[in-house]
Each structure stands twice: as C-alpha cells, then as structure tokens.
C-alpha cells in the first residue's frame, strides 16, 4: 500500500503494509531515531510525534492513519524557536533532559504553552502524568515548564509590539 504524508516539512511517499506502526516507519525507513518506541502500548510517551500539530503516540498509529497528514518528529521540531525556548527553560531550572525523553517532554509542553500563558499546578501535573521519566517528578522539572512559559510569553509580547 502506498501512503504519502508530510514529514518534517517534506512530502514523502512510502510503500508499506497498512498496519505497520508509524514509530517503526519513522525509525527504519527515514532514520528518525529520536522517536523511541519504549513500550509499544502508549504508556511511556517516548515515541510522541506531532500529527497536524497535536501530540500523539506514534507506536499506536498504523500507517494508513497518516495518509496526507502532517507529521513532525523531534528531529523536525528541535531546530524551532519553540523547542529551543523549552530546552532553555529546563536548562535554567537545572533539569537536564536526556535525548531519549525529549519527544515525551517537548511536545506536550509545547502544546500546553500554545494554549496557556501561565501554566498552573494542574496543567503541570497533566504534563508530568504524560511523561514517564523518573526525574519529571522533580521540582526542577516543574520550574523548567514555568521558565519556558516565561520565555514563550516574552517572545509573544515582543511579537505583538512589532
């Protein structure tokens, strides 16, 4: 079955079996190894990608479901300003994110910051529940989200002034 979709800004087409998981396609056919299917049951979140701007578990997504969709992996997201703001926030809070967990942290945090200017405790708790990485329960992780929100707001304000 031939399936075409948009991957990290490129239009791509692949011949594959329809039920193959997107996580496997991304890793094996496109070498995008920043997507880590840790559990294959939608629990760990390490395989998160953006589909049409929404974070989803790529290990649960069959190939036929991505037809003509826009997929952004962590490799495509990392160079963006949004990703760098979040990373800087965590860095300033003293929370170093291993490469393995980037997709499970950056995508949900980005979704949160797109809808909320000042995330409250409940919002942060939602993110933490999503991320199955031990140190995400730490104070530094929580502070990282808050600092990232400040960077995001500062940029938004600058954009409005211009």
């Amino acid at each position, binding site marked *: 079955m031939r399936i075409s979709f948009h991957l990290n800004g490129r239009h791509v087409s692949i011949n594959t079996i329809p039920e193959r998981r997107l996580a496997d396609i991304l*890793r094996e056919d496109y070498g995008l190894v920043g997507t880590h299917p*840790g559990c294959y049951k939608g*629990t760990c979140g390490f395989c998160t990608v953006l589909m049409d701007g929404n974070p989803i578990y790529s290990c649960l997504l069959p190939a036929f479901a991505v037809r003509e969709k826009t997929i952004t992996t962590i490799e495509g997201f990392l160079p963006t300003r949004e990703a760098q703001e979040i990373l800087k926030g965590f860095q300033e809070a003293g929370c170093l994110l291993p*490469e393995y967990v980037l997709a499970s942290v950056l995508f949900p945090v980005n979704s949160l910051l797109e809808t909320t200017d000042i995330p409250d405790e409940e919002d942060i708790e939602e993110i933490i529940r999503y991320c*199955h*990485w031990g*140190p995400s329960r730490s104070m530094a992780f929580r502070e990282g989200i808050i600092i990232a929100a400040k960077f995001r707001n500062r940029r938004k304000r600058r954009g409005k002034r211009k």
Partner: protein
Amino acid sequence: MYINDFSFPDMLYGVILGSTIPRGTIQEILLPELPSQIKVLTAKEIPGLREFTVREQKIPLLAYSEIRYEGEPILLLYGPDEYECRNFAEKIVIRYESDYIIETLEQPGEHQIAARRVINYGDPDTVFSGSFQEIEGTYTIHPKDISTGDAQGALVLPRSDSKLQVISSTLWPAHVRNTVALTLGIPKKDVSVESSAILSPSWKKLWFPSHLAALASLITFHTNRPAKIILSPRDEQTFGPGRSKVIIHHRTALDKEGGAIAYDVDIRIDGGAYPAFGKELLDRTCAAALGAYRGENVLISGKLIRTTTPPKEAGNGMGLAETLFALETQVTRIAELCQQSPVQWKKQNFQKKGDVLPTGGFLRERPPVEELIDMVSAVSDFSRKHASYELLRKRRPSLRYERKLLKGIGLSICYQGNGFLGKRDNELPVTMQARLDTEGKLSLTTPLVVSKTAAGWKNLAGSILEIDPSTIELYSGETTGIPEAGPSILSRNITIGSSLVEKCCEAIRQRRFRDPLPLEIKRTFRIPRNTHWREEDFTGNPFLSRSWAATVVEVFMDPILLDVKVRGVWMIVEAGKILDRNWAVETLEEGIYFALQSCGAKEWIPFANPMIQFADSSQNKTKGLGDLPFIGVPSAYVCAVSQAAGYYFDSIPITPALMHRYMEEL
C-alpha cells in the same frame, strides 16, 4: 546512542523463538519450507560452550533438549527483515514431551532447594516459649515489571582484523566479552565490547545483555555480517529475566512493655529456573533480615528455591528491598498493636553502637537512626498526622458510609548495604587508571559503566588536582588494556569508583611536581584483609558500608473508587560525602517514582513533589544512595495504605483487585 538507534548496511536481524511449555524435553522441531533469506540456528550450531556462567550459575544459550521454563530460547532465526523473521517464527512448530509437575515457590519439594542459609543467635526457642505476646505476619513481594523505556539488545560487527566488535546495553562489559568469547570458542582478545547509552541503569542490564550479545555474535560468526537483536517489550517479558518473588514469614516475641525480645524469620526466594546471583541474594536477604533493630535471640532461615519461572535478576537493593519491606511492615504492625507510635517503638528497639548484629559482628559505627527519624518526622509532621489519622480510622463507623477521603501515613527506616557481601568484591576487583599528560590534561579510564556519576567524579578529581572538571576526559566501560571488573551495581560506582578516583588523583598530586609528565597511575580496589566478615561461618559485619534513610509516605484514598493518591514523600538520607547534590537528588527522585510504581498496580501514581534532604554526615567517604528509595518507600507506602484502608496489607504491589478483596472482607 541507544542500542536500538544503531544501524549498519547489510545488517541481519535476529529473532528468538522460545518454548511454550514450562518444563519438558524437545521432541521434534517442524520447520516449514525456509525462505531463502531466513536461516535458523539451534544449540547444535554453537561452536563453543553451550552454556554461559553468571557467578556460579550456568545458563544455556539455546535449549538443547531440556526445557526448564516457559519462554526458554530454543531457536534463533535471522534474516535481513525482522518482520519476515517474526512472521516465519510463528509458523514453526515445536513438539515437546512433558509430564513434569510445575515447580512453585509456595509448595517447594526438597529437590527444588538450590541453597539454604540459617542464622541462629541466642536462644530464640526458650524466649518464644516464655514471651508475653507473639506477633506473626507473612509478607509477599510479587515481582512487578517496570519498563525503564530503552530497549534491550545487542549489535555485533565483524571487523577487518577478524575480531568482533560488540555493542551492548550492558552494565557489565567484561561479562559480555567473556560470554561471547566462550560461547564462540574464540580468545577473549578477539572480542571488544562497547556500552551503548542507557536511559536508566536497571538490573535487567546486568547479565541478560550478555545472553543477547552471545546470540547476536553467533549470527555474525556464521555469516560474517553485522547482526542485531532487539527485544520487543513482549519479547522482554517472555525471555527477559524477571524479579524474584519473595515470601517472608515473621514471628516476633514481645515482652510486657512491647519490646521485641526474639525474632523468627523464614525467607523463601524464587530463584527461577537458573538462579543467577541467587546465593548472593539469599545471603544478603538473610544478613539484613533484622535491619537496624536489636536482636538478642534470633532464628533466620532462608531458602533459595528453583522453580519453572524465567531466570531472575537480583533487583534494586539485591534482597534488602524485600527483607526490609517485610521487617518494617511487621514492626509498624507491632507498634500499632502495642498502642505505641511507630516512632517511639522504633527508637526503643534500634541497634546502638557496640550492639551485636544477628551475624555476630559488632556495630562499629553509630547508626544515625534517631536523627533521621526526628528530621523526617519534623518535616512531614508525621507524629501529629499519624495520631490524627489513627483517630479518624478508629472513629469511622463503617467504610461503606464513608464519603470523605481516607488518609494514612507510614514511616520506614532502612539502610542500603553497599558493595557485594563481605569480601566478594575482591572476586571482581575494579581498577582505575589516571593519566596526566604533558599539557596537564587528565584522563580517567575505568571498566565500570558510568553515566550519571561521571560529573561527580570529574568534580572530585578537579578539586584534588585543582583543574577545570570540564577538561577531564572519562573513558568508562573499557574492556581493553585494563583488568576486568564486576558490574556497575550496588552503588559500586560511588563507593568503589569514587574511592579509586580519589586515590589516583592523590597519587598524581604528590608526584606531579617531582616526576616528569606524563604520569600514569593505576589503582585497584580490594577489601582489606582485616575486614570483619567471615565468609566460612557467615559471621561478622557483612556490608562494606551502609547508607541510611528515613522515609515517610502520605496517601489519600477515595472511599468509593479505592483509588490511592500519594500526597507526599519525604526522605532524609545519610550517605556520607555527597559528590554531586543535583545528581543525588535526581537519582533519589527517580528511585522514588519507580519504587512507587512497583508498589501500586497503576502505571503511574500521581503524587506531590518528593522532599529530599541530606543529613549532616561525620564521615568523609562516599556511599551509595541509589537503592534507598526501593528499600524504604514500599513499607512506608504499604503502612500508609493500611492505615487509610483500616486493613493490614501485607504484599506489594497493592493491586485494585487486592484492595477490593480486602474491602469486601471488611
């Protein structure tokens, strides 16, 4: 790079086909017509030894005839496409002959007992017969598989010089090298091992990666092409080692004041079909069975039992998590039955400096137990909350009509025994090599696999030699040019590794202005001969060092949904000199998260921030702390849930099904 991220052209993928029965013999293997690109290997195709060794235990690489557990690898399929191999594996039929009885932990036969340990001190029988009261409890620790996220696997590359390059997600590279060399029948120098990145150092990465590496190298041996085996999460559950189920029965004799005067502890450990590290696990479990409590009349008997379950990993704490869970839950129950606060009871019954240990040794350092309990009680407000929740529980007429949140709080005190028991670290000594080159640049080389400890070591070396830590290079997991070492477990990186960094750097500091550069120093860690432990009769002080922690867990429970939410975790730690505070806090936070997961059935229990503090330590040496949450959190959690529910829970994990059963009994 993580093991699953490596890819090479012309690579072959290996798929393991395991047995579908727990015990029996292979009668016949029916292979359908093989596609040209897929090949199958059996135990007959292993050129060297068909078994590999983990400490004293031999484990077959592929089953030859006899099957000893469900999922035991029988065939190794390989081909250029992993999916094709997996699909083909499903078509293979293996016929067995099986008329064996399933061997379990609950009702073991005499032939199942792989090892025994008995510690008898004082006169427990007489004291029990004259005691005022006896309290009994049976505590069960069911293994709960917690995925750390990163895959298990191995990759083997043939090199132009006819040697093999192995990339493995291992914490014990020397074991991988030995296993590959022995099973292929080639010299060890022809195998070099590189450790891939590891997300979280898990016990699953101790000896099991050696098994996978040996299987992958078997493919390379027969094809001279790169070969990779990656276990899917399902494979990992089938073939991967699990944790041991442990059943501990406690009987405690009390005097009129409620003080413990004698202990009788019976320990049964599921060693699986091949009890790797089983003897060490049994010995540690027995040696620590009384934890930090005084025992003048003690009978501890432990058995390691072979069953038809997969081989076992030792698990965090290597026996201490299980044994101290049972003990702390039992003593909290005793305190409650004696109408005392757990804090008060524990303080009265703790060991003091100079007390005799159940293993006959003397306690040479004063355990910082009282300070830790006082600190953790103060920050968590334990005494007030415990008394008030106890009152609420007693006044509650029936759970059926309760609509308010049920509340509970639990406290535990525990220690982590660092290093292998007694002098066993000497069987797997660790060497560190430090080199200061002509430009003043320092490099450290060690066979230990170092990830998070690296920054701490660099800071330590930097402070001794007064150089910038960021300029120091660290080569970890080395298997060439440096003597082999044991695995990077039981906080050996911190206790042994840090001590070697210190010794090497001190030696360089003394010589660097006297002798010409470059300077090269090599130091090997050995347990001193005069250590107070006698292996022969199992007496003395068993642990290299002990780190301590007092933990409080507070929970809220929904009376209708029976959903437990952890409201807070407080932990006060005494672990000697802390090399890197951020790293230490992160390690403990991660440990608390995983320990809570292992206690509850849910994948994730939402809880407020854990609060971690370090007690002032008079000691200048570094001690491990990574296992402390796994040892201290479970009993505190279970005691808290028991108080909230008003029922004694005596096993972990506390599953919703278990909770419903208890509630129905109420």
